[in-house]
């Protein structure tokens, strides 16, 4: 008798690339006029445009080298001909199967009413890229989220720590394709960890420092003065 297959097997394996793409429809035809920023960027940084895609008919995506992201983005923000003053989004894409992770910047210029996407490809063994927090403060939390869920380190980020997952989360980075849907640990281990957290788990080191002795937290599971050993002030 064949091995019994459970419907949860697919969940344990994780999402996979679509196998049969024979019936895949064609993408929409390109309707967009030339994007002025593409020509401008090509003239200013001659070898910086690694690839230029037009998706969904009118959305321009430029692939740029990851080690030059800061200077290119700074120019796009400060040059009056570009003036991309709004950083809409920073996110990442993982296609799985060992392909590089892509960091995606969505820019918008209120002055010229233009949108532009930029992508940097990071190989899996060098997941580091310069933070753009110095250009747009909006990048602070967006980059923290990418760090949390994809494990990409943003260099010179002022406060790079996990944001959605717990600070001491030990199972990895959930939005990577190699991360199984139910997490890496067993349910029993996840429950054990959840129940054995002490109070320091809920505070950052910065906050614990600030609290100081006068607001020290009692050790886990101990509440009375005799148990905690903390002095009582009358």
């Amino acid at each position, binding site marked *: 008798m064949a091995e019994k297959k459970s419907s949860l097997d697919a969940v344990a394996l994780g999402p996979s690339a679509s196998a049969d793409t024979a*019936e895949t429809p064609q*993408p929409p035809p390109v309707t967009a006029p030339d994007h002025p920023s593409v020509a401008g960027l090509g003239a200013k940084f001659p070898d910086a445009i690694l690839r230029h895609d037009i998706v969904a008919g009118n959305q321009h995506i430029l692939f740029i080298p990851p080690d030059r992201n800061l200077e290119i983005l700074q120019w796009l923000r400060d040059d009056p001909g570009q003036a991309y003053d709004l950083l809409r989004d920073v996110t990442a894409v993982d296609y799985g199967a060992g392909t590089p992770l892509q960091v995606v910047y969505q820019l918008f210029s209120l002055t010229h009413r233009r949108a532009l996407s930029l992508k940097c490809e990071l190989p899996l063994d060098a997941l580091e890229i310069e933070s753009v927090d110095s250009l747009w403060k*909006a990048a602070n939390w967006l980059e923290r989220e990418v760090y949390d869920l994809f494990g990409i380190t943003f260099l010179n980020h002022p406060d790079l720590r996990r944001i959605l997952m717990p600070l001491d989360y030990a199972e990895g980075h959930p939005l990577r394709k190699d991360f199984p849907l139910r997490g890496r640990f067993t349910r029993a281990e996840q429950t054990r960890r959840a129940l054995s957290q002490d109070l320091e788990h809920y505070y950052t080191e910065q906050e614990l420092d600030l609290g100081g002795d006068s607001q020290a937290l009692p050790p886990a599971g101990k509440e009375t003065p005799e148990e905690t050993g903390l002095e009582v002030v009358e």
Partner: protein
Amino acid sequence: MAQKTVEFALGRSPEMGVDGKPVMGPLAPVDISEPDIESDNMLVNIGPQHPATHGVLRLVCELDGETIVRCIPHIGYLHSSFEKLGEYRDWNQVVPLTDRMDYLAPLIYNIAYVMSVEAMMGIEVTERCKLTRVIMMELDRIFGHLLWVGTFAMDIGAFTPFLYTFEERETIYTLHEEYTGARITTSATRVGGMMSDMPEGWDQGVRDFANGLPNTLDEVELLLNENGLVLGRTQGIGAISGEDALNMGLTGANVRGSGISYDVRKDQPYYDYETYDFEIPIGEYGDCYDRYLVRMEEMRQSLRILHQALDRLKKADGPMDVDDPRISLPSKTDAMNDMESMIHHFKLITDGIRAPIGESYFPVEASKGELGMYVVSDGGTKPVRWRVRPPSFVNLAALPKLLEGHLLADLITINASIDIVLGEIDR
């Protein structure tokens, strides 16, 4: 562990003044062992289970007396990784996940998601579908703003507007229910169309609602606009300059309150918004009061769009779904009576629709700000990546800056004024 104590001499007998009345001297602290009592800042934890944080938001504040020196927000208590779950579902199955994010304006999220998928696939929806979606989005913008006005007023101590706005919200709940069968978890859209055409008389229900709302808005404004307590608690509180607001990525009424006229409906129009006659209100000082005024005016502008869209809907009585068998399901009658249609129905439901290789970032103006849906396809029936650019996530990131130097009591006002919903922040 040393505790600093201050004792006051309370047992003094008052001296007699020249007119024979006792003169109460100021209470003077005596015997202070350590004079610098200001130096020790205090750490106060607010939330996650606190009614004024509008969800499971936790704020750790460093206080100097009652002044906030620094605030560190903690989020993630509602994190359920919708984006990961979406990678295991086909394109249409993602729709129910979207309305669980912003449950205060669910239809906008349903619609924004399918719009992004349609842009990626190059589908042009029918005129009737466009107008229905515009009506739904404007209805839910009002839906979100009504809740915001009610809870904002309640947070600063005015209870009555909450009752007025929730009565109006109840009408929208009923309209949701008539169309989709659900009050909050609407899941009304499908790629290429809607779940169904609107029920008989639904548009008249929207019209009646749009005619009745201005009275409620007038009543609320009468209660709040020139109320001394409201002015004192909101004017000059949580002010941010337009330049800073843009740099921090604030969108929606938060950036418009600071005088920046950024609205996706005007700056990057979709669904013929450029042909509607409406205006974008902007504030001057960027404080809580301006954000309140902007949202009140936005509701009136949304009503204008509603009336125009309802007028156009009368002339658009074509089909709701696109005429493409690879995307749209056959009618239920056909699927139950005709073999080919049943196979067609079965294939679309079991396999799911296929999207071309590509991706799309599609921004719409949600009630909280710019909502961007980013979808990536590798040519299969499931998204490789589905990313939501959450407006209130980015808006909340500005909270520590808005709070700097304000009193602890203002934290409640400022937090309420930026209009967050934790379901979408944590996703």
